[in-house]
């Protein structure tokens, strides 16, 4: 399609016809004119994060079946998108994740049990957002994208060079907040990167019923910001494309919208049945584009990934899984009095009702004796 682009240079905002890819599904390098392959050290670090992330994801999937989590939206198949995007940021850059970005949070260094706390059914996010610079995982769609814009704008006002990375799914690009966030970010020239993981489905609804735009990245041009497309199963490409956008934001040149093309191999959550709405052949085809095996093949090909290193990472991943089994396997100790603790910064606001609950609990304890 041709968009008329007069002297304003808006043609440079248009996404590429094909998603950027640097390593293909067989592990072969596919050179790109605009993006360099990350260094071998970066790719080894990415490989390690992918192995850990995948093991974490498998363990969480197992534990939801055992009733240890209330629900788990798997990242299976999307690990390269999440790992690559996080590795493109500095640790003082902020992440604004959704419920499906658990692997991103583990990669940033959030305690895996903290990552799963909301999904365990608890009332709080499980980690202090200020420690790892990660906002609480957001369940309503796209609402966090505006928070990312505000925080990025705050950083500019404070003279800091931190960037906000907002995670969104393909379905969430239909939400009003997504569009308001793109527009606010563009007008404020806020240092924020919007990272859309297009995994093909919003629960059961496929992308073609969500949008008829040429690509989700094309939505950027309406707001006057660049749109980029990247192979979301190629961790090397994700690192390169997101890094360029993050550094552009850091340099004060404004926001970027990135669409990562990936696929949700598992159902929406454990409570979903994906066989009702999609073809098993499609899933098999995407398994062939697996994000871990291609970087595995590439790094073994260059000799960077030795058997010894791979075994070390696998052992590390097993330790993460074992730790999760141990700490999530125990029944959580909950105190219903916590209901009242953080509703208001002003604790006195609900003191009367807190006393009512105390009395009720005292009666129950009395009856139990």
């Amino acid at each position, binding site marked *: 399609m041709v968009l008329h682009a007069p002297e304003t240079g808006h043609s440079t905002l248009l996404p590429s016809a094909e998603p950027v890819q640097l390593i293909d599904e067989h592990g072969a390098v596919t050179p790109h004119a605009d993006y360099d392959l990350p260094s071998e050290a970066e790719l080894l670090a990415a490989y390690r994060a992918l192995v850990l992330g995948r093991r974490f994801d498998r363990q969480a999937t197992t534990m939801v079946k055992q009733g240890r989590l209330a629900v788990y939206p798997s990242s299976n198949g999307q690990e390269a998108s999440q790992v690559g995007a996080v590795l493109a940021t500095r640790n003082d850059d902020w992440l604004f994740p959704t419920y499906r970005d658990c692997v991103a949070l583990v990669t940033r260094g959030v305690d895996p049990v903290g990552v799963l706390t909301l999904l365990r059914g608890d009332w*709080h*996010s499980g980690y202090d*957002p200020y420690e790892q610079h990660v906002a609480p995982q957001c369940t309503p769609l796209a609402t966090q994208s505006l*928070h990312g814009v*505000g925080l990025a704008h705050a950083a500019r*006002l404070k003279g800091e060079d931190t960037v906000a990375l907002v995670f969104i799914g393909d379905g969430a690009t239909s939400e009003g907040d997504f569009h308001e966030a793109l*527009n606010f970010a563009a007008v404020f020239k806020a240092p924020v990167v919007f990272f859309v993981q297009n995994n093909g489905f919003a629960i059961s609804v496929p992308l073609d019923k969500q949008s008829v735009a040429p690509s989700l990245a094309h939505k950027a041009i309406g707001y006057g910001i660049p749109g980029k497309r990247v192979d979301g199963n190629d961790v090397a490409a994700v690192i390169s494309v997101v890094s360029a956008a993050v550094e552009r934001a850091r340099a004060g040149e404004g926001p970027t919208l990135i669409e990562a093309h990936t696929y949700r191999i598992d159902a929406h959550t454990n409570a979903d049945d994906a066989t009702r709405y999609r073809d098993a052949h499609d899933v098999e085809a995407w398994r062939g584009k697996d994000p871990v095996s291609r970087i595995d093949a590439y790094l073994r090909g260059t000799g960077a990934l030795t058997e010894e290193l791979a075994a070390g990472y696998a052992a590390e991943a097993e330790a993460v899984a074992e730790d999760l089994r141990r700490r999530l396997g125990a029944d959580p100790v909950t105190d219903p009095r916590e209901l009242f603790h953080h509703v208001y910064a*002003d604790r006195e606001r609900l003191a009367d009702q807190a006393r009512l609950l105390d009395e009720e609990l005292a009666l129950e304890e009395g009856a139990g004796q």
Partner: protein
Amino acid sequence: MAAPTMNRPDSDMPDFEPKVQTITLAKGINMGLRAAMEADKKVLVMGEDVGKLGGVFRITDGLQKDFGEERVLDTPLAESGIIGTAVGLAMRGFRPVCEIQFDGFIFPGFDQIVSQVAKLHNRSKGSIKLPIVIRVPYGGGIGAVEHHSESPEAYFAHTAGLKVVSCSNPVDAYWMIQQAIWSDDPVLFFEPKRRYYEKAQFDPAVSPDPLWSSRQLTSGKDVTVVGYGPTVRIALDGAAAAAEEGKELEVFDLRTLSPLDLGPVYESVRKTGRLVTISEAPSNCSISSEVAARVQRECFYSLQAPVLQVNGFDTPYPMSKAEEEYLPDLDKLLHAVDRSLGY
């Protein structure tokens, strides 16, 4: 002296010291915003038309000129965007004051307010504080078109994590907006737009009442009357009119709608045995209903008559030609007082 009883952060900026003068309610809010911005560089004003224009009601008049475009921010026209962006700013230590242009336009921002602003403190186990003030010109009586005269305060009072206040006079306007800004909890600040240009004498040396308190305005033995925001003026007029007939009304201005401060109202009703509430909002599930429920619970053996409510109807706010029939007024209030005394 400025703000003697307020919990104000340390500041390297000089205190804003207004003089003894006659001010309107609109000017009171403007001066209060100015004082807060002088006191703390983290206070930002943001919204539609709040910059050069000074807002459609001129509440932010002159602020952008004096504090710059970074602190008085004309935003794109999107309420969810304004509130959601304020969340991110507050997460990094700012104290944003968001202007919603009219009551009926707050609803595009409703999700951000009730699902995010109200809950993030709790969801982060107290780590994130959101000292956001959302200013809302509200209520009718100005002959406006649809969506410009509504009273949506009950939606927000119903939501855990939010605080809701409404000023009724110029002096409270000056102090309450500052107290709301220094609150570490998010505050919905409802401004009675038809009272914007009512005047009062302002003396900065007189200390303000705490924000989370109601206030007794008249003393009387016969009927307790509770109003807030735009209806406080009607309640005071009612007390004067009733006095001519030898009836004494004890009038209260609620000021804070969530939390409610009803202790003094209970004391009053235990004395008078009668309560009439007055509010522009529809009565169903309203602030008035909550006041009535609590008073019957706390003052059951003192009540000589059922609690009566003078409210708007449970209809959409009418076109301006019919608003006089809709709005509570002096006649409706005095009629309710007579009914209460007739039991």
